[in-house]
């Protein structure tokens, strides 16, 4: 069977659902964050697939920016997680129930 656009989009959709499953079911902050990165990657795959099959390189430029912004976001998010861990001594989401410092 010839591999077309739908194949890549189905892989992207399944990856997105997997990332969403990770965010909902796992209770460790770092694994939740990693599942978020999985969702971002699935969006990247969908964009590159569309860019290739529609003969338009703008999708790839957008993926370039998404990767850059995701890297910056991961840095800031991990700094926040480290600061939170220093305060609360726990990386389990169920322990972090109050917003008071």
């Amino acid at each position, binding site marked *: 069977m010839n*591999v077309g656009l739908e194949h890549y989009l189905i892989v992207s*959709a399944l990856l997105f*659902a997997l990332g969403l499953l990770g965010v909902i079911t796992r209770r460790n902050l770092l694994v939740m964050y990693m599942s978020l990165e999985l969702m971002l990657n699935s969006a990247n795959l969908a964009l590159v697939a569309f860019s290739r099959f*529609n003969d338009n390189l703008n999708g790839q430029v957008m993926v370039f920016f998404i990767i850059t912004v995701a890297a910056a*976001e991961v840095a800031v998010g991990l700094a926040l997680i480290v600061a939170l861990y220093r305060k609360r001594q726990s990386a389990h989401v169920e322990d972090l129930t109050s917003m008071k410092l």
Partner: protein
Amino acid sequence: MAITDILFYLFAFLTLACGVLVVANPFSRNPVTSAMFLVLTIISMAGLFVLLHAFFLAAVQVLVYAGAVMVLFLFVIMLLDLKEEERRKAKKLGLIAGLISIGAIGGVFVRSLLATQPGKGLPAPTAVGDTATLGKLLFTNYLLPFEIVSLLLLVAMVGVILLSKKDLK
């Protein structure tokens, strides 16, 4: 079946299998295991990018995502010295509701994709994302976002340094 089709199925299977192992590993609840499988997922996605003729993005994916972002994740995991995620009593109802809702979302995605068939009637793909073409686009049409992203990286760096100070004096 052409070799590219075989490679697509191989990389797609690898991506999804490693994605499943990131999220729901039956053998170990260590976050380091999840990070390792996420690295494998990212690398097989770079393989998918190469199949889509996005060569620059495949290289950037491996260098930046697998090489910098995941290394940062691993540094933080080791800094916090997280052991195995303790098996608290998972609320069964919440787990089942989550699984059903995600199955529904994934099912809606896949069904709508199979119904609308977005790839039907498209001409044979010719776009090649090599560095020169992408660079030309980046430095002419997208010059402003490029400069803004560099500013964003500076802001992120300053923010990270401030957030990781032990005493915020």
